[in-house]
């Protein structure tokens, strides 16, 4: 629709750019900090423009960590984060697909009971049950393991609900045609339902990957072995250790490393992700 208010449009663009700058500013600062030497990062005022030491700092962060520490870089932590994120996203998608399929397409006793049980998990984020869950994990001997990091986080209901929604909108005729063609339930599931849910699966993957990668409280609780720390934990560690003279360049480089995978995933799969997000929650 046309409106003869070009001033308003220019104003809008300006405000948007301002908004972008404000949102992006912290990330810019991080990037800048990651490109200077540690010495530079103790002099006021701190720089607003990047320096030339990106790769040095990268090497430091990955391989050496903070000086004065055990000399362990964050490479291992990055790997842990990756494994955890992948296990959570893949695991969650897999069991949610199965559960949604069962609840939507089968009539069986206790169906509604199971449905409500799954529904309850929506209302119990891990922060609310940390101590007892910790106990259970400890009792099962899963502390300091990849399984312990991921399994307790994969059963929540959002993915199941979304797939349920998707399945409900798939036409009945497809199932009927498949039955006439002689397909068993699992064949139907594998050959028809899953391909039709491809976009939702991809979108959900993005959301869950980020969720898994960014987990903090849970890994904090159940890992005590350095080797099992995730990269977001690494940041906090560095900040703690850095009470006297924080080596911001290394810390910020680590922060950058912690940010890059999820940001990349979000930006590159943006359309898919937005679609999945706005459809999951509604």
């Amino acid at each position, binding site marked *: *629709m*046309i*409106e*003869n208010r070009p001033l308003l449009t220019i104003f809008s663009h300006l405000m948007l750019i301002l908004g972008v700058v404000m949102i992006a500013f912290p990330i810019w600062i991080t990037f800048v900090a990651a490109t200077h030497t540690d010495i530079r990062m103790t002099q006021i005022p701190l720089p607003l423009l990047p320096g030339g030491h990106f790769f040095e700092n990268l090497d430091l962060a990955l391989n050496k960590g903070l000086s004065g520490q055990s000399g362990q870089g964050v490479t291992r932590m990055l790997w842990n984060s990756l494994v955890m994120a992948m296990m959570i996203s893949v695991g969650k998608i897999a069991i949610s697909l199965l559960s949604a399929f069962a609840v939507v397409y089968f009539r069986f006793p206790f169906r509604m009971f199971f449905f409500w049980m799954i529904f309850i998990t929506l209302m119990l984020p891990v922060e609310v049950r940390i101590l007892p869950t910790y106990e259970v994990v400890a009792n099962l001997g899963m502390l300091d393991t990849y399984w312990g990091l991921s399994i307790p986080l994969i059963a929540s209901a959002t993915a199941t609900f979304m797939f349920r929604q998707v399945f409900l909108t798939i036409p009945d005729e497809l199932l009927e045609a498949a039955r006439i063609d002689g397909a068993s339930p699992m064949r139907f599931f594998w050959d028809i339902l899953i391909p039709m849910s491809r976009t939702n699966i991809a979108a959900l993957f993005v959301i869950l990957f980020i969720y898994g990668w960014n987990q903090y409280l849970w890994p904090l609780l159940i890992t005590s072995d350095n080797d099992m720390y995730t990269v977001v934990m690494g940041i906090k560690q560095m900040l703690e250790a850095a009470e006297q003279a924080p080596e911001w360049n290394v810390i910020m480089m680590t922060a950058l490393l912690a940010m890059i995978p999820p940001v990349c995933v979000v930006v590159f799969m943006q359309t898919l992700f937005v679609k999945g997000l706005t459809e999951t929650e509604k």
Partner: protein
Amino acid sequence: MARVVLENVRKTYPNGFKAIHGVDVAIEEGEFLVLVGPSGCGKSTLLRMIAGLESVTEGSVSIGERQVNDLEPSERDIAMVFQNYALYPHMSVYKNMAYGLKIMGLPKEEIDQRVKKAADILELTEEQLTRKPKQLSGGQRQRVAMGRAIVREPSVFLFDEPLSNLDAKLRVQMRLEIKQLQSELGITSVYVTHDQVEAMTLGHRLMVLNAGYVEQLGTPIELYQRPASLFVAGFIGSPSMNFANAKIDAEGKNVTISGQAALPLGNGGMPNHASKDVTLGIRPEHLELARDEAGAVPLIASMIEHLGADTLIHGHFGESKSRLTVRIEGIQYINPGDVLPIRVSPDHLHLFDPATEKRLED
């Protein structure tokens, strides 16, 4: 009530697409002009340019005595009925109709008076006024949309395919109501539709648009009797006009559909177009079953449609490949393969230039 004048109105989009190629029309006070044409012909675009929802690239649009090209929609003193009604879902029917008046700053009593008056005209009950749009049926919502336009008492009414979303029976009923309403209120109206029956019933004049060009502007009867182009001829009238390749003889007195007998041309023939190849048009209702073979052309029937009030016979003339439809009144017991003598009335022949697709005049 005001005149609406469009002078050489053109619309080109930023990507270069030319949507409207120069439209000129002077819509008189109280006139009901219908813009009709197939999807994508530009009729909605033209309407929206009058409303101020699309910009005018070239030319001028005037409402009353003012040129309104640069005016906001709210400043043009118009009201519009949208295809999907565009009723504010969170407001009651009353509030929907009162909204524009509230913005105008009218006192409460007057708003109430106008809304009640419009509700009366449209037969909306007091109770319905308190409901939200989603609680009403399609036809009722349509009335509310019209009510919203009526209370504004504008100079011009604009309608953008308001009946498209209704079922067939309701459409016919609402069509007549709109016609009556406009006639009583006497407000200049511009109405967009793709349905030629709707156009023919409602309009004082019709503007037939095709790919941004005006094919013809005229009264329904003019468009029916003297279509200016092949497009208009085929668009107006249902079932649509029959077309066949033909040739005018050397004297301009007769026209021959390939392989058939010559058909006499009325009105002294077309001496200026002698020996010309033409496209011949004749409406199904102007082909008659002849009583005898003299002067009749034999039609070989292939398919029959029984509509009760009429019978449609589809077939072809002898060797000619052109398929034809004939409409005969009443129930006719005819079988595929029957040969029927058809009389062609010379007064109802339409001739078009095959290249320009325009009507041939003498």
